[in-house]
């Protein structure tokens, strides 16, 4: 026996809640319509791109999107094969990546997938694409064992297991390293993978590891770790992390008077490193297939076009995704079909001698890239080749 006024309030609240849900459903309906209006012609290849477009790592997804879109506009202008890109936001989460990949394969009927952004996402989504017989190619998934999850899983991201030994070897020889400290972000799968490779190649080069310090992605205070490292006087510090933490580490380290070289994994490989760390970035060393300073017409043209379109310098994520789409188109042309998934896979696996902005490229028998990396060092605020 609720009194009249109370009852009316209950009803109003109820209606407000229903309205909330209804409005969401209506919004959903509109979205569905706009998505289904896309039409395709015979020589259009639909390629799905699950990428980390919103959330903490959105910067990576954004660079990937821009690299792909630049390549798309160039390819479509040539006109032989037209590319339609369907982006899906994975928010860097595994379940989202699974849903996105499933949607792209089964609802949008894409011929291939470029993405997802993170190695962890690939570990979950790769087997699904493989099972469905759809090529899935990572442009930034550098962790160990990625392509082992399925026969249709490819990547054109230089695995850390190739890049880091290259860097460590060169740095050890150049600076005569005897004892080093190692730091890595221990909640980032990819950085942990890099750390493991660091430890292995340090061992191979006979370098002593004084201490291993960890931190987490998005940490901002590294003073405790670096104070400890400073007291041990290492010849160099190896860091496996994303550029954001790497830059802050460099800043703090220089503040605390650590002047030795810092050797990084792929995370160092970004213009942002110099932007955030400023002068503190001097002496940071990294291996990269992407080297903007390269004396190569293709590279310079890419940088120019990218600058013109997005008003900023491309980073490796943009470069690698740019190349990825060209590699994909190459294979599509050879396959002679824009819809045959199996043919595409077999032709993609045969790619050799492709010349992209990240250098000469081929897939090895495990669908990992065989490419060369240049060891770079930051000098006067620029990446230059370490010779």
């Amino acid at each position, binding site marked *: 026996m609720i009194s009249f006024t109370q009852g009316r309030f209950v009803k109003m609240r109820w209606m407000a*809640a229903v309205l909330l849900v209804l409005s969401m459903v209506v919004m959903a309906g509109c979205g569905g319509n706009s998505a289904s209006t896309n039409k395709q012609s015979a020589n259009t290849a639909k390629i799905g791109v699950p990428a980390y477009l919103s959330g903490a790592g959105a910067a990576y997804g954004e660079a990937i999107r821009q690299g792909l879109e630049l390549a798309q506009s160039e390819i479509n202008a040539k006109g032989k094969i037209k590319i339609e890109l369907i982006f899906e936001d994975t*928010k860097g989460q595994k379940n989202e990546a699974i*849903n996105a990949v*499933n949607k792209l394969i089964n609802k949008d009927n894409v011929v291939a997938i470029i993405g997802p952004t993170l190695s962890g996402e690939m*570990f979950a989504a790769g087997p*699904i694409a493989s099972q469905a017989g759809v090529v899935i190619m990572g442009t930034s998934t550098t962790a160990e064992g990625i392509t082992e999850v399925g026969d249709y899983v490819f990547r054109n991201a230089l695995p850390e297991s190739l890049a880091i030994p290259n860097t460590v070897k060169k740095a050890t020889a150049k600076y005569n390293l005897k004892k080093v400290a190692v730091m890595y972000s221990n*909640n980032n799968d990819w950085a*942990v993978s890099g750390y493991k490779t660091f430890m292995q190649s340090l061992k191979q080069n006979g370098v002593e590891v004084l201490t291993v310090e960890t931190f987490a992605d998005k940490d901002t205070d590294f003073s405790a770790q670096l104070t400890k490292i400073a007291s041990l006087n290492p010849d160099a510090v190896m860091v496996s992390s994303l550029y954001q933490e790497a830059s802050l580490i460099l800043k703090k380290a220089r503040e605390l008077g650590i002047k030795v070289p810092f050797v990084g994994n792929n995370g160092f490989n970004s213009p942002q490193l110099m932007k955030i760390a400023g002068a503190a970035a001097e002496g940071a060393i990294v291996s990269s297939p992407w080297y903007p300073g390269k004396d190569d017409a293709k590279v310079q043209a890419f940088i120019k076009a990218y600058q013109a379109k997005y008003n900023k310098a491309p980073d490796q994520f943009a470069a690698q995704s740019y190349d990825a789409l060209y590699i994909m188109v190459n294979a599509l042309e050879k396959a002679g079909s824009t819809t045959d998934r199996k043919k595409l896979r077999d032709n993609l696996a045969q790619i050799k001698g492709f010349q992209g902005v990240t250098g000469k490229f081929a897939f090895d028998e495990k669908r990992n890239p065989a490419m060369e990396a240049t060891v770079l060092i930051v000098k006067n605020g620029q990446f230059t080749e370490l010779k």
Partner: protein
Amino acid sequence: MDFILNPYYLQIVMFMAINAVLGISIYLTLSTGQLSLGNAGFMSIGAYVSALLTIKAGAPILVSVLCGGVAAGCMALLIGLPVIRLQGIYLAIATLGFGEVVRVIVLNLKITNGALGISGIPSMAVIFGKQLSEVGLSSGMGGLTLQQIANLLVLLVLIAVVAVLVFFCIRVHNSRVGRALAAIKADEKAAEVMGIDVTYYKILMFCLGAVVAAIAGGLAAHLTFYIGPKDFAYHRAVEILLFAVLGGSDVVWGPLLGAFLLTALPEVLRFAAEYREMIYGAILVVMMAFRPQGLLSTQTLRYIKEKLGRSRVNDTSTQPG
């Protein structure tokens, strides 16, 4: 049928079922008016324990999932005992902290493979497929491929789990214990003075919630090939909370509705993915301000039942003519 055979929709329905189980887990804890923000942590215990048991010890999935549940239940008991005597706020924060501690431990243990997570977990679909082909169904049946049958079986298993849990909740709700829980939720002190062992029931439901969350984790691990510490962070705990807040936590159908809506909406709202978190946040605030009991409450159910009852009465009255 085509709809449900499409792996994309199938996957979404499977995630709905997992989320429904998670919704039930928080419903159980909330049924004594306690808020646990650690359900993502319990979920990760379930996921890791069951994944490791399946991979390293070759245990059957059912056994490993249940072991995960038991492990989480024991952890919940350890935390619950000291904390539950305190105000509700303490449990919320302590469980929040617990989730973080579990995450850090998972990051540091060798057996959990740190941030790299565990990949190559045998999925239920693959295992069912294998078993089906062993009994001679390798070419499928009734126009369905082997893979499709296996997928449908997985879905059936998940729906069965949800059904069992719903049955459990409804039966408990309508029993002597359920009445005690409702009393505790309404007024803890009065309930205690009326002779209800409040601490016992609070711990019981907290642990049950943990067990159910862990079962969801174990099942999820065997759906997705890969688990990593990122899957069980704070945002996951908030998502689980959302199921109960949106759907309601008075009756078990509430969190189920919440789980269904919040799993389906992101898919239909893909174009608005960037605003999703913002919408989630807004839902929490708006629901608390205007309808804290959630979309479905006891009153709503009663209202719906009356409506249905009335229309049925009308039907029969017009029938004889």
